[in-house]
């Protein structure tokens, strides 16, 4: 019987972490060398954790499925990273960052975790700066900041529209330094396909060598997952094509509870779908909403060129509906508003599934050069995809699947319900509630890896200093490897005639339609049923050329798609269970008179943590009540 213990320390909010930290056990430098830690993932979360643990002297093994750690999906983050430095003297503070995050997440995150993330944010910026991350500076040589959605202060540090790239290359450089020193061993092009548990503890992984197809065994005293999000469940999303939840999912099936799986953020500003073969949607950073104004024509089905539509015939609907925040409303609000306008017939472009993001006024006021300085690379990117030059006419944008607030359930130590298995970064559920604020993810991923996990994992490892190397020639490894082999054989031997990608596309569409931006009971049930049928077909008609014992990109995809079917089913179950609206989870049955999310705090102020009970069996729901000691629960308002 699993009992959820969040391990949140008592005491005043601002003292919790400081106090707790000093009470944690330590491992002496001499003993660290003897302890192995596996880190799966080299994004901001994984690379920062691995390099920090390496610096401390642990023996670290790091994995990624790309050819090099520098390509982890964090590299694609654009707009920025938040910190409570208050450099702008605009009233920011750790407490305000905490408050904005709790509110932005629609009161479905843990207070203590969020406060801690805000608390370490300033150190994150100090560290990146020291690593040589070229954040934007002002003329006086000080760091510059800008505003992001859902807040009224300017706390977002940035490096043009490539903040993720620059931060990731910063962590990659410290990771490289540790690889050079020999404290960290890098395993690229290796995909974790199973978790190995010995005597109830996470003790290793099975990975598939993506070049040779061989299954390999790696052991450690603890395993850290930093494997990112699963927005790719919709097929078309703003994520890199390889992003997938398999590592988290196989761990879930071995006993790690999965929390709030249906909390997926749909980002309001992505380049819309342009052709039927499209393989991904490219994000246009939220930072653009600092200067861009969102509008649709006031007239339905207006086919005129946007530049020919006069000012008085434009509906700047965000500014109209949300005068206080205007174009900078949080993402969930912005996305639903765009969908609402398009569904009502005001959408633009060939498909009618787009709205305008216009820079005309900003260019007039600040000059083209200033706009180019801020967003040059994004404008260039947009032009390459669409052929439209955004300096001359408005961009067309539409919401797209983007970020998963849901993930593996972790306690205050970032440990899952499997002892010795940690989850950090986007792969856990802990800090963003039902909706993540812009630039808060890079902050959380880095904070987790640099300044939280290294402390909490020591507390666990301290009890393991007498445990020698974990051998891999044991029945547990044997059994896990055999099971993976069977999984692979099963898929390869179907020999049908439909590719993994084709199934992925179809399953993504089902989830997008029935468990996407707007949900209702009937729809979710229908989606779950369609998904089940498609999954049955998948096991009858999938085609994978070649075998498992070689480089096989189709097999890689099929293994991931298999996971998407299962996680998709749990998403539906979770969405069905939560008969309230909160953040990105919008249940039609629960809305205010003006169409905003309506929470039901008495019934649903809890984290929904799901337990896997075996193949073909129903998941069991565990509730972690969210106790708000410091914040008063309110209806979110951005009006």
């Amino acid at each position, binding site marked *: 019987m699993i009992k959820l213990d969040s391990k949140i320390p008592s005491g005043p909010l601002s003292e919790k972490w400081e106090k707790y930290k000093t009470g944690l056990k330590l491992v002496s430098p001499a003993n660290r060398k003897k302890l192995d830690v596996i880190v799966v993932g080299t994004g901001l979360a994984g690379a920062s954790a691995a*390099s*920090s643990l390496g*610096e401390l002297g642990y023996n670290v093994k790091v994995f990624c499925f*790309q*050819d*090099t*750690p*520098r*390509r982890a*999906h964090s*590299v*694609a983050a654009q707009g920025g990273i938040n910190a409570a430095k208050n450099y702008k003297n605009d009233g920011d503070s750790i407490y305000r960052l905490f408050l904005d995050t709790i509110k932005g997440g629609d009161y479905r995150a843990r207070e203590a975790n969020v406060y801690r993330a805000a608390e370490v944010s300033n*150190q994150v*910026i*100090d*560290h990146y*700066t*020291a*690593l*040589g991350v*070229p954040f*934007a*500076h002002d*003329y*006086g040589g*000080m*760091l510059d900041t800008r505003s992001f959605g859902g807040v009224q202060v300017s706390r977002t540090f940035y*490096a*043009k529209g*490539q903040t993720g790239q*620059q931060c990731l290359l910063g962590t990659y*450089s*410290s990771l*490289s*330094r540790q*690889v*050079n020193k020999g404290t960290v061993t*890098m395993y*690229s092009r290796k995909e974790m396909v199973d978790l190995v548990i010995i005597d109830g503890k996470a003790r290793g992984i099975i990975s598939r060598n993506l070049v040779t197809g061989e299954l390999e065994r790696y052991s450690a005293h603890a395993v850290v997952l930093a494997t990112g999000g699963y927005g790719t469940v919709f097929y078309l999303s703003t994520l*890199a*094509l*390889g992003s997938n939840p398999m590592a988290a999912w196989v761990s879930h099936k071995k006993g790690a509870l999965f929390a709030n799986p249906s909390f997926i953020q749909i980002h309001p500003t992505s380049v819309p779908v*342009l*052709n039927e*073969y499209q*393989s*991904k949607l490219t*994000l246009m950073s939220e930072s653009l909403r600092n200067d861009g104004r969102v509008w649709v024509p006031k007239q339905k089905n207006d086919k005129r060129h946007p530049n020919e539509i006069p000012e008085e015939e434009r509906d700047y609907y965000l500014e109209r509906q949300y005068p206080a925040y205007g174009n900078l409303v949080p993402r969930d609000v912005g996305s639903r508003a765009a969908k609402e306008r398009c569904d009502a017939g005001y959408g633009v472009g060939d498909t009618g599934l787009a709205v305008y993001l216009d820079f005309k006024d900003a260019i007039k006021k600040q000059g083209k050069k200033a706009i180019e300085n801020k967003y040059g690379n994004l404008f260039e*990117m947009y032009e*390459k*995809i669409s052929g439209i030059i955004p300096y001359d006419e408005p961009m067309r944008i539409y919401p797209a699947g983007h970020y998963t607030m849901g993930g593996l359930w972790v306690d205050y130590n970032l440990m899952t319900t499997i002892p010795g298995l940690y989850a950090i970064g986007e792969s856990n559920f802990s800090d963003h509630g039902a909706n993540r604020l812009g630039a808060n993810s890079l902050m959380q991923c880095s904070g987790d890896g640099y*300044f939280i996990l290294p402390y909490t994992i020591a507390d666990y490892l301290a009890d393991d200093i007498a445990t020698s190397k974990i051998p891999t020639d044991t029945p547990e490894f044997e059994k896990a490897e055999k099971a993976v082999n069977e999984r692979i054989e099963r898929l390869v031997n179907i020999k049908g*005639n439909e*590719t993994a*990608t084709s199934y992925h596309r179809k399953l993504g569409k089902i989830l997008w339609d029935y468990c996407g931006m707007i949900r209702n009971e009937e729809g979710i049930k229908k989606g779950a049923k369609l998904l089940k049928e498609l999954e049955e077909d998948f096991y009858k008609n999938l*085609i994978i*050329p070649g075998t498992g014992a070689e*480089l096989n*990109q*189709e097999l890689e995809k099929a293994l991931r798609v298999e996971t998407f079917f299962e996680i998709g089913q749990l998403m539906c179950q979770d969405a069905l269970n939560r008969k309230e609206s909160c953040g990105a989870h919008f249940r039609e049955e629960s809305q205010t008179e003006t169409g905003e999310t309506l929470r039901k705090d008495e019934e649903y102020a809890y984290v929904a943590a799901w337990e896997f009970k075996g193949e073909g069996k129903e998941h069991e729901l565990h509730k972690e009540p969210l106790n708000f000691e410091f914040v008063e629960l309110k209806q979110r308002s951005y009006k």
Partner: protein
Amino acid sequence: MKVTLKIWRQKNAKAKGRFVKYKLENVSPEMSFLEMLDYLNEQLIKSGEDPVVFDHDCREGICGACGLYINGRPHGPEKRTTTCELHMRSFKDGGTIVIEPWRSKAFPVIKDLMVDRTALDEIIRSGGYISVNTGSAPEANSIPVGKHLSDKAFDAAECIGCGACVAACKNSSAMLFVAAKVSQMAFLPHGKPEAADRVQSMVKKADVLGFGGCSNTYSCEHDCPKGIPVEFIAKMNREFFKAKVCKQKVE
């Protein structure tokens, strides 16, 4: 559109490769280049053939995974464009497109169009970092960085590690890649303490790994998808020279 593709097929690192011709119909000009290859692969798989293997991930020009040699140019015909950002509207209807992997001794072919670029990681490991441990950084604004310097450092830091510069160079030189990292850190005050060691060990490492020297033909700059300019190679050379002089003084 209709296109004829001539694609380099090679079973593994040791096998001998060859070009294979494919005719592809109903290609939409709106497709990205990689979506066109997905479309080809979909057909190959269904007809029982081995799909073409290539690296990719972000498909928006930032991760550096993609990289094909297209009609004799790394990343194809458009300037400042990665393979994944390339669209079929850049090609002629009815034309032939030749697709090869990066060619360099330091980048062995793994299969078809996929190569091993670990050598670039090894160059970074030899010194492409600032040695600061987690927890020891000073307050971020305590070391002012002039705007022009942080902008310059950013321009250099834009390198995505794709290796096109190496593929473009007749000497397989990685100097643009090395110079980008060396310059980024040399522009910033934080990178100064290790500047001399950094440039020396990175240049040496590139040499050991089998990358060639630079003979100033500038094809790297021409084909770099991020527009990293050769002026950074000049900057690196100055850093290298400075390092030598400094070393001599110390000794």
